[in-house]
Structure formats: structure tokens, C-alpha cells
């Protein structure tokens, strides 16, 4: 069987459809906007509002954490989806989804520092040393931090493609740490965090799929 090289069918990487990025930005921002509207409502308009549940602090905290995990899983799904479908424009979403994951993780941590620790980093350190649940959460955040800092084109140039790629495998570490953080958080046996672990494992397995470009080059060689 002869495959046409996919690179020729796909649109160039730098020209995704104009609607794609704004649509995904809007989707990723929606839960944050909902939280902001909820807090404005609660603090200034209607103190009895239940739009963020009866425990708005826990609701916000859980919401931000869950969105960090969801956007991170989405970012990690980009390359495997491209490999499976060959739809190149999706690659333009990887960086922005990763940055959304970092943004939600930073808000999650910031909200924790504000509401539980009065911004005491000493307390945070003590917390992390005492409780595995906090330790894994911090590990996840610290794994995302260098990725966010090296997300620019110039950073990729400075590091060199190979090194940059190696560094950015930390995203998997962040994902695993975040899921363990989630599993350690819930009471009793709950399926939800395990679903995320399953998704991460599946995405990791897909990494070992042959690279499309190389596979197609190989298929053109005579048998």
C-alpha cells in the first residue's frame, strides 16, 4: 500500500483556521469567568447566593484544580490526536492549553495560599513536608513552572529543539503528580481521579506510536 506523504495534504503548521484558537481560549476561560461572576455576585450583589454552592471557597478551590488538570490533559492529548488524525492545525493549541493549565494551577495554589495560609510560604513548606497530598500538588506545580517559562519561541531557540523537548516531558510528571494529589484528596473510593490517571496513561502509551513523518518515509521505501 502506498501512502501519500501527509505533510502535503495538511495545511502548514503556522496557519490554523482563524476560529480555532479563539474558540479554545473561550472554552478554557469559561469556568474562570463563571467563578469571577459568582464571587462578584456573592460579595457585592447577593450574599445568600448559592451559585458557587454553600461553600464557595471549597468550590473555587476544587474548580481551579480540576480545570488545571483538565487543560493539562488536553495539552498532552494534542500530539497524540495529531498523530492519530493527521490534523496539523491542532498542534497550534498545544502551547496555549499548556499555558492555561499553568494559569489554573497558579490560581489554584494562589487561592490556597490566600484562603488557608495567609500567604505564608513557611507554612506552605511545613504543609508540604507534613502531607503527601500537598507535596504532590506542589510537585505538579513546580514541574509546570519551567515549562511555562520556556514556552516562548526564543526559549525554544535558546535551548535547542531537542533539549526543549526533553524538558517539556516534565508535563507528564506534572500530570501524574496532579492525579496523585487528586487521589489523595478524596474520601472513600471515588472513580473520578482514576479516570484522569487512565487518560494520562493512555496518552503516554500513544507517545510510543511511530512518528507520522518517519513512518510515511519508511513506507515509501521499496519492500
Amino acid at each position: 500500500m502506498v501512502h501519500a506523504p501527509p505533510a502535503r495534504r495538511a495545511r502548514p503548521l503556522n496557519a490554523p483556521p482563524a476560529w480555532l484558537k479563539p474558540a479554545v481560549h473561550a472554552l478554557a476561560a469559561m469556568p474562570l469567568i463563571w467563578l469571577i461572576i459568582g464571587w462578584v455576585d456573592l460579595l457585592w450583589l447577593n450574599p445568600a447566593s448559592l451559585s458557587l454552592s454553600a461553600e464557595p471557597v471549597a468550590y473555587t478551590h476544587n474548580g481551579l484544580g480540576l480545570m488545571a488538570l483538565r487543560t493539562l490533559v488536553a495539552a498532552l492529548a494534542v500530539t497524540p490526536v495529531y498523530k492519530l488524525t493527521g490534523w496539523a492545525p491542532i498542534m497550534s493549541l498545544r502551547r496555549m492549553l499548556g499555558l492555561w493549565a499553568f494559569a489554573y494551577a497558579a490560581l489554584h495554589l494562589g487561592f490556597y495560599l490566600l484562603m488557608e495560609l495567609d500567604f505564608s510560604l513557611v507554612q506552605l513548606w511545613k504543609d508540604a513536608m507534613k502531607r503527601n497530598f500537598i507535596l504532590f500538588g506542589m510537585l505538579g506545580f513546580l514541574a509546570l513552572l519551567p515549562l511555562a517559562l520556556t514556552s516562548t519561541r526564543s526559549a525554544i531557540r535558546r535551548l535547542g529543539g531537542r533539549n526543549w523537548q526533553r524538558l517539556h516531558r516534565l508535563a507528564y510528571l506534572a500530570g501524574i503528580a496532579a492525579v496523585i494529589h487528586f487521589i489523595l484528596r478524596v474520601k472513600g473510593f471515588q472513580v473520578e481521579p482514576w479516570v484522569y490517571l487512565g487518560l494520562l496513561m493512555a496518552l503516554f502509551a500513544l507517545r510510543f506510536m511511530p512518528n507520522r513523518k518517519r513512518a510515511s518515509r519508511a513506507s515509501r521505501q521499496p519492500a
Partner: protein
Amino acid sequence: MPYHSRPDWQLPEREATPVEIYASRRTFVASLATAGLLPSAAIASTDPAKLTPLKARRTIATSEEPTALSAVASYNNFYEFGLGKDDPARNAHSLKPSPWTLKVGGLVKKPLTIDVDQWIAKAPLEERILRLRCVEGWSMVIPWVGFPMSALIKAVEPLGSAKYVRFTTLADSGQMPGIRFPALDWPYREGLRMDEAMNPLTTLAVGLYGRRLPNQNGAPLRLVVPWKYGFKSIKSIVAVDFVERQPLTSWNQSQPSEYGFFSNVNPDVDHPRWSQATERRIGEFRRRKTLPFNGYGEQVASLYKGMDLQKFF
């Protein structure tokens, strides 16, 4: 001559209504509803405003502001109806708390089968405003309606060998969608030592905020043990048994290192995964200090004299 007066809510075994008649009674009520004859107050609902009002005499009060009814009826842990805090209010409409039979037995002289509706209609009800502290680190102040657990204990006359009381929640997957999922080993079970159960603070609640219990709060009958973490206050009870040995309780069974049998509120004994030193009162944004025995030390600390509370957490 010893004379044991039968409390007026006690239903003799011979009068316990067979299931078929219960079922037809429900059909009868439904026919009333279609005919527009049903009064607006309901015995079962997830909407607290629709529930039957109860007359009660206030016996325990506090200077603290009670938590808003809307929060009490919308923020619940009742895993039989789902794991999310808002799941019980959304899903518990399928619970049928009337008619409801409570069986009280085990090591007692006079086992009882109680029709809970009749009991609620006849029992002298008290309003007791009590703090509830969840093991997860949040708390509420709730005006319960009910009666002291000790009244029930005295009525069944436990044998000398009865050292503990075991409580069991309904486990009916038809009424409780969460049962299909093994979050815990169903049915949900809880237990108290006899002296804990006899303590005047230990309450059997049948209502809150002056009306019958909303389904999501454990209708029609639940336990309230205000100095212990909330999960000890078992909901929708179908059986109370007096036993000789410490009973196996659901959370203790699922994770013994995290949830002890006693589970007294104790700021000095952390949950292995989070601190118990502070709590967030629902309706407030900042955390406040958690008090030993949830502030009821004066009434209950003597129950645990000489016990190492770090060990028996």
C-alpha cells in the same frame, strides 16, 4: 408490682402494617394528589419549604447564628445519593421516607418495630440548636427537631450485656442511586458506646428548622452526635441494634487509619491527610479554630476520662 408503661409511639409487632397495605396507601395518597385534595405540606421532599411543620419546645440553644436553611439543605454528604456536595439535594427525591419502619432490637428486653410517622406525630419533640463539624473541615449550626436518644434506649430496656449501639442506614438501590457504586461498604453503619448513646446531647432528629427532615438531610430519622465528626451522625436509619462488642462502622472499615470508631472532634489529632485544627463555618470565608469535642467538652469530656485520645481517635 412493676408496671412498664408503653410509650404512646410504640407500635406493637402485630400492628406493623404489611407491605401491600403500605403500597396501596401510597397509591391512595397519589390519588388524593391528583384529586387536588392533598395539603400543600409534604412528608417527603428535597425542598424544605414544602415539608410538614413540626411543633417543638426549644431545649438546647446557642448564641451562634444558625447556618442558612438554603445551605443546610444544599450542602450534604450522603454518598447513597452521589459523591458531590450538591448530589443529595438533586438526587434524593427518589427516597421515600414515609411510610418508614424502624426496627430496634438486639440485646434488649423489649424489641420495637416503630412506624416513624406515628412516632413523629405523638412524641414530645424538642428543638436543639447544635454545631455540626464535618471531618472534611467545615461546620454548620443547625436547629434540629427531635428527641434524646436516651428516650428510645430506656423504652427498649437493654440487657446488661449490651455495651454498644449499632445504627444502620437504608440500602435500597431503587431509592438510592449511589448504592450501585462501591464508595463504601453498604449499608452505611455507625455505632456508639452505650454511655455515649445515653448522653443527653445525643439526639434522634426527625426535622430541622421547624419542619420534617428534607430527604438529603437523612429523612425521616437520623442521629445527631454533635461532639463527633459529622459522619457519625448517620442518616435515614432503618435499624438500631444493641450489641456486646464494638460494631464495625462504615468509614472505620474503609480506612481505619483515618476514621476511628470514636471520631470525637479533636483539633490536636489531625486527619492523616489534612489538619483538624481549624474549620470553615459555612457562610464565612475565613477559618476559625476547632474546639475540642466541638465545644461540648463540659458535657462529654468525662466519658473519655483516662483514655488516650491520640490513640482512640
